[in-house]
């Protein structure tokens, strides 16, 4: 359920938060999206869009951090070896 796609906010207009709207770029295509649920949105933010509404401003810092953590954990763990017990993936579980 619930196809939602990230897009980059190009513009924000509208005084009243419930009616706030703007253009969002989805990898080269653009559509007018409502920001009623993300009234604090700024141009340049990435938002997650569903049914014409931004459901959330995507936390880019968190995205980068979690991705880097995942890749680091996976990289430390080369195939054939057992996972390094200090990697984040093994934080709660030492056994392979």
């Amino acid at each position, binding site marked *: 359920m619930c196809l939602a796609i990230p897009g980059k906010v190009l513009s924000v207009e509208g005084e009243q938060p419930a009616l706030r709207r703007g253009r969002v770029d*989805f990898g*080269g295509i653009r559509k007018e999206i409502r920001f009623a649920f993300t009234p604090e949105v700024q141009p340049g933010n990435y938002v997650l869009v*569903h049914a014409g509404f931004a459901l959330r401003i995507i936390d880019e810092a968190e995205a980068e951090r979690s991705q880097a953590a995942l890749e680091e954990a996976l990289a430390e763990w080369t195939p054939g070896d057992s996972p390094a017990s200090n990697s984040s993936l093994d934080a709660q579980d030492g056994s392979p």
Partner: protein
Amino acid sequence: MAAADSEFVLHCPVPADPGDRIVLAHGGGGKLSQRLFEHVFHPAFSNPLLDQRHDGAVLPAAAFQALADLAFSTDSYVVKPLVFPGGNIGDLAVHGTVNDLAMCGARPMYLSCAFILEEGLPVATLRAVVESMRRAAERAQVLLVTGDTKVVDYGKADGMFITTAGVGQVCHPVAASRIQPGDAIVVSGDLGAHGMAILSVREGLEFESPIVSDTAPLWPCVEALLKAHIDVHCLRDLTRGGLSSALNELAQTRGLIFQIEESLIPVTGPVRSACELFGLDPLYVANEGRFVAFLPAAEAQKAVDALKSLDVSQQATIIGFVSDEPGHSVHLRTATGGLRILQMLSGEQLPRIC
């Protein structure tokens, strides 16, 4: 009064030009029909065969190579809206039929064209469509030699419907039965642009995009392959149902398994993004100027090079091979390394939200 003094003249309501809007009488075979022909169709398509203004055309034997096989095809064109980014129903009606001939390995030569116009259609729209057809026919080097026009009541025809039929001369034998295990599978360019260009102007789903329809004549591509002495085994254009449906049809007809790589299939960024947004799969989206070719693997690179020399097939690339296992399916190695069997499309792809 001046009028009373002058000689009695019947003020015929028939205007000198076809008027601003199509009316039923434009299809009635009388004066208005004639004016429509003289002002709209004739200037665009004039040629000695059409100019005889007969209901049929006699095609000169001298135009054909002796004993050459002929290919014959017909198709009807309905599209909403009539004009879309990168083309209109006129381009489609010419390209669609010449491409059906090209996919038979035939050089397109003659076209017929029947219009069903809706009462109230702006004549300017018809002129624009006819002008596109003229340009498309010129580019495809075909002559439009006979035609017909009917007008139906307001609200009965989405503006206009066009049916074209075409005759071409076969230059190379291509058929599903010639597909061999080991054949390379080549697509002529990036996929999905036509379908997404139409979607971008569909009421209720509109979006701004740089995507334009890929509508184009494909005979020059086929000719380029033949000039490069490629023994093309089979050709298929990727219209409704897209790549996936075309490959499935052929795999089923020929009884072989096709193996293709998702990462090799060209799809532009904007088309990919539009597909993500509406939950569609570019492998099922319609194209109007793309085809798939089956040809000997040893000649595949040469074929791709030949195709790349033309604008319309600049993105041509090998996407996979015909397997020697028996079967009737299309196997896709996904970009993430998984495996998936591509199915035929069931009905039209609908934008989804969930």
